[in-house]
Structure formats: C-alpha cells, structure tokens
C-alpha cells in the first residue's frame, strides 16, 4: 500500500505535444492535452473516485497511475519513490477493467492464483490467500469451475479478486467496472466493494461518469473536466459546497442552479426583466464577491430553494413554467427574467400557482467568480 503523489503530471497523446500547457482561460479551445498539470496526492488506504464526463481525461489519469501510459511530463511518486519510469508490474498495481478480463482456459482458482504464481509465492500460501479472497467475494463454491462459463458479475469479481490476492498491492484501480453489470445487481457489487475497502484498507481509485457510483463508492471524489481535477472532496462537500460551477452542475440531479448576477449593496442582483431582483447574501461573502473582477454567478441547489405564495422579506417573484410530478418529489421550473431555475419540492407539497415567490436561504446561497467559488467566512467544506 502506498501514498501516491502526482507531481505536475501532464499528458498528450500527440506525438509532438504542444510545448506549453495552455493557461486555464484558453483550455476549452485546446484539446491537445488529455491531462494538464495535475498535482494531487492520493492518501494511503483512501477510497477515491474520479468522476467526469466522457473525454475528460479520467481514464488517462488512471493509466498514468498504473503505468500503462507514461506521462508526457511530470513525476509520479509512490511513498516518495519515483515510479514514473516503472512498468505496471514493478509498481504493484491491480486494475479492474470495464469488461471482465479473465483467463478463459483456467479455473476460477487458477485465475485468482495467477498473479501470485507469477511472483513465485509458495503453494501453501497461495492456497490460503486464494481461499480467503474467494470467501470475501463469495466465489468459494465456484473455485474449481472454468472461469469462462460464469456470469458477467462473477467474472468481474474474479478480475477484482486477482488484485485482492496480492498483499503487496499498492492500489487497486477500477475503470468503470460496473458498466456491463445488470442494473439490479449493481448495488450488490457496490456493497462488496465497500466491504472490501473496510476490510483490507487498500487504496482504491475508481473511474466513472456516474455520480451515483462515484459518491457511493468513495470517501473522496475527484471531479474532472477537460484534463483537470476541479475539486476533490467528500460527497457531502461536493454536494453542499461545490468549489467550481462545473462541479455544482455535474453533481446532483438536477444540478445546481447557476444564474449570472452582479453584486450591489450586500446582495446579488439578478436580471429579472424589470429592474433587477435582489437576493440577499451573507455580508462577508458579498464583500468578497464585490471585490472579484471575473463574471459573477449565483449558485443554489434545487433542493434548497423554497416557494412562498405571498411576497415576503427577501422573496423574489417568479413565473412558474412547469411542474413535473416525479413520484418521490415535484420538480418545478421557474422563470426569473431570462433565467430558468429548478426547484425540488416534496411529493406532498401543493402545486404552485402561475406566479410564486422564491426564497433563497442565505446559508445555502453561494457565489462564483469566473467559475470558482467565492469563499464565505465560516464555510470550509468537510
């Protein structure tokens, strides 16, 4: 097991990479870099998820860790040892792929014993390790069977097991491992993974585009976009205090409401088509936001908005554009000038009338400048 450190890792798939990693401002236009200057520490024994849309670089990042890809620039350290030039084998990494990779001609037992045999472990010890792992993964009864004949989820467990049998493994990497698993079985495997983490305290890194998988699996989730890690935090921190607008949009279903605004007199002023709607902010937050030069956006999650029938202190008049009854909750779409906001209401909440008043709870209303969170005073995410 090891603490893994990324030291200014950048990677380009081009043969002759552009000489400079471009500045964040122009990043969107330049797709030559799959990873841009990533500094990150993966603590020993942590359960991490790499979450992001297709093509954000998360699989590249994973392959850099395992050593299947040599980064164009930067160093990677395992416990302060530079492993940048080492092979996957020398790094002691295990990886579980999107599709189960098993050795067709071997039995389950032989499959599980394979990495140990290659490392010259004794027969007796191999047997006990395999038995132990098979027990954990509920594969004991299948040990003598040909691996080829098993179901997809059992095969995926074998691929995982080949990583678990090695007690010297530095980290186990997962590349969207549940893609081929039947939806009804997914949660069972998620549970298995959790158990394994609790039991073995291994460093686990899990790549996915599905927030459900990432947030369920990981203690700390790294949200990636366009080759950068935007935020690493606990599921709760990502939900409550996303440090980047993309994180706010990407986490949560539906994502965070983001409205362009300007700051005046300790409040956010949003274009409502008339003379501007005022949304009161935490004074300290407002002061910092006012000092920012980049464009300001107001952020609030649909869960935190409240509706009132009557105008009141700090309530903003909106037009209701639609109400969807989604069984467990009602999703309201409100129009505020040119902007659209989503509001999540309880299933028993009364359906709002055509016009309503929206309350932005002050402690839940956050502000972004140039896409980055403007820190309030007391808010320091867990």
């Amino acid at each position, binding site marked *: 097991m090891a603490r893994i450190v990324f030291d200014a890792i950048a990677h380009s798939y081009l043969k002759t990479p552009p000489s400079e990693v471009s500045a964040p401002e122009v990043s969107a236009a330049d797709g030559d870099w799959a990873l841009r200057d990533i500094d990150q520490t993966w603590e020993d024994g942590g359960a991490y998820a790499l979450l992001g*849309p*297709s*093509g954000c670089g998360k699989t590249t990042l994973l392959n850099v860790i395992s050593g299947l890809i040599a980064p164009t620039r930067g160093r990677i350290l395992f416990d302060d040892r530079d492993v940048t030039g080492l092979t996957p084998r020398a790094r002691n990494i295990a990886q579980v792929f999107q599709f189960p990779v098993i050795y067709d001609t071997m039995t389950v037992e032989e499959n599980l014993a394979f990495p140990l045999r290659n490392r010259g472990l004794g027969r007796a010890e191999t047997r006990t390790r395999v038995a132990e792992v098979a027990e954990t993964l509920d594969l004991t009864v299948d040990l003598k069977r040909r691996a080829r004949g098993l179901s997809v989820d059992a095969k995926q467990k074998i691929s995982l097991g080949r990583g678990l049998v090695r007690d010297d493994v530095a980290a186990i990497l997962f590349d969207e491992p549940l893609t081929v698993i*039947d*939806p*009804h079985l997914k*949660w069972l495997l*998620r*549970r298995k993974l*959790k*158990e394994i983490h*609790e039991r073995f305290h291994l460093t686990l890194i899990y790549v996915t*585009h*599905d*927030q*459900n998988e990432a*947030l*369920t699996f990981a203690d700390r989730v790294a949200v990636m976009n366009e080759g950068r890690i935007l935020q690493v935090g*606990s*599921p*709760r921190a*990502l*939900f*409550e205090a996303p440090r980047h607008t993309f994180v706010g*949009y*990407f*986490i*949560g*279903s*539906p*994502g965070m409401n983001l409205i362009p605004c300007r700051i005046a007199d300790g409040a956010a002023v949003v274009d409502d088509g008339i003379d501007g709607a005022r949304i009161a902010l935490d004074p300290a937050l407002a002061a910092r936001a006012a000092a920012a030069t980049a464009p300001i956006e107001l952020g609030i*999650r*649909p*869960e935190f908005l409240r509706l009132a029938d009557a105008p009141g202190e700090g309530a903003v008049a909106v037009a209701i554009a639609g109400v*969807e*009854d*989604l*069984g*467990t*909750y009602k999703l309201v779409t409100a129009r505020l000038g040119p902007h659209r906001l989503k509001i*999540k209401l309880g*299933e028993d909440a009364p359906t709002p009338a055509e016009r309503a008043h929206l309350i932005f709870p002050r402690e839940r209303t956050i502000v972004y400048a140039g896409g980055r969170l403007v820190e309030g005073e007391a808010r320091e995410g867990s």
Partner: protein
Amino acid sequence: MTLRLEAVSKTVGGEVHLHPLDITLAPGSMNVVLGPTLAGKTSLMRLMAGLDRPSSGRVLVGDHDVTGLSVRRRKVAMVYQQFINYPSFTVYDNIASPLRRAKIGRAEIDRRVREAAAMLRLDGLLDRLPDALSGGQQQRTALARALVKEADLLLLDEPLVNLDFKLREELREELRALFETRRTIVVYATTEPLEALMIGGDTLVLDQGRLLQAGPTVSVYRTPACVRVGEVFSDPPINLIAGDVGADDIRLGGAILLPRRGHLRVLAPGAYRFGVRAHHLSVDRRHGDEVAVEGTVVLDEINGSETFIHVELGDALWVVQEEGVHGFGLGERIRFFLDPRHVFAFAPDGALVAAPVGGDDAMAVGSGGAA
C-alpha cells in the same frame, strides 16, 4: 390517428415474447412502456412499427388494418438505443433522408432540416459525419431524423440508455418539451421509473411479455395494481415484507407493529404482503404516527442528491431514501421510521388491496391477467 392493437401476440421459435394484449393509443398521446430488461418492450415497439408481424391479432391505424403492411408504407419513425445513423451521410443528409424519400421540395426540406437541427442543437454540426460526433450528438441526430418526418407514430426504444449519466438527464428534459407540442403518438420504452415519471403521459407496465397495468403515469405509480408493478415502478426497489392483519394491529415481518387504521382499516384479518417505497422511510421522525424500526446498515448509496441506505433487519433487506448526502458507516445500527399512511397492502396472489389515500383517483386497468 388512433393506434390500436387487438389481441396482438408474438411468439418466436416457440418462445413467447408477448402474450395477447390490447392497447389503444390516442393521437397526440405520450406513452411510456415501462418494464425490466426482456419484458417485451422492444418486441412490442417493433410490432407497433410494423418491423415485425404479430403472431396473432391485428394492428389498426384509425379504422385501417395495417397488420401486414410494410414499414415503408407506414408513417412511423423510430429511435433505437444504439446510435443509429447512416455513417456515410453527413448530419444534414441524415436528417434530410426521410424527407427526400417522401419527395418533398428542396427548399422545404432545407427549412425543416434546419429547424429540427436547431431544436436539437445540431446547428454547427450539419456538415459532419456521425462518426465525428459524440454519443449525445449522434443520438440527437437520430432524434432529429425521427422528428423531422412528422410521422403519426414515433417510437423511442430506450433512447438514452447508452449515454453518460449527466447527458441523459439533459436530453430527457429536452425530449419532454419536444413531444409536448406534437400531434404524433409518442411511445417511449424505458426500464427506469424516474424516466417514466419525467416523460409523463400514460404508462404501460410490461413484464415477461404481459401487460400488467395501463393508465396515467402518476396514477400507475401511486396505485400499482399488483406487487410486480410496484417492483417495476420503484427505484430504489420498493420494500416488500410479509405481514399478518389481526384484529387491532398489523404485524410486519414478525417484529413491526402497525395500527390498523386509515386506508389499512379495510383489510380483513389474514396474511398479506406489504409494500412501502424507500422515500417513505426516514431516519428522522416526521410524524407522530410513525413506527420506529431498527437495523444494521449494509450499504449507503449516494446518487448525487439523495442517499439510499440499505438496512438489514433479520432476513429482510430494507432501503431507506434520504434527501441530501449523508454518510452512514457499514455495520452501523440505525433507527428509521415507517409512516403507516404510505403502506401498500397486496393480497397473497399479488393484487393490490389497499393503497395510500391520495392515490384513489387512479384507475387500475388490469389487463391480460395481472400476475
């Protein structure tokens, strides 16, 4: 025009894909076909489209029997779960192809293609080949081609299932808006309850080739005609537990006592299966009537906005849904609350006996023999 299926069934090589079923879809209606994988959703859609011929029964459009009519002569459009486009045509030519076949004038084609492309945000991509597009854009192209045709019947077979989580969410919302204004009969197949609720309209619940229930989506959700509908139409899974109704109270799984009150008063003494959806369980007491239940956490799933807590209680496994993101450790003891007002009661054969009030306006149209 109305689409009617009369006693339509499909058998392939001795294997029944669809048992005889009757369905009527009104013009301009929005219909969801909800069912787990292999429920027969695709078989049903292919019969509706005319891609396959039913083994028995008739398909009628208006008063017209179209059972044996080739798909070329029908006014249908279809979107598959794979991204199906003509790989050698540009996006523009892809969208234009059904119009060109229909011998429509060039100017008119151009206008309609650009309109559809704008609607699906493909404006800047018209000259590209499908291979040069992302998955989401490819599926948008397929959707545009289906919409531009202005067919009588638009079939969508799990169109979003192969997209990224977030893309799925976005496109789902756009779709609903796109269908709202059309006269077309839309049929949308999905395995996901939430998707069914988002699309709205009417829902047909299909399982193992049988039509279990049909009706307005929200009513079917609130008043599942049988246990199986409850299972298919709940995500996370509905909590089901055997119980006995006594004179004064109801005993669930041997341990939990519910008062025999409210909508449960109608139950005659005897054995039942009780169902309660995960979001009607809560770790906070929301109500004085709620009954406390204790168990061990085996998993806590977070989907971004909600947390699903899997709790083991004796042999039974419960799922509790909590708003927001919460962390519960594996093996932690937890107490949650069950609101008796939200409990469904099913007879031993599976049929719904009592549903929570508020769902009584639903019409349960059990057809083809509810399981």
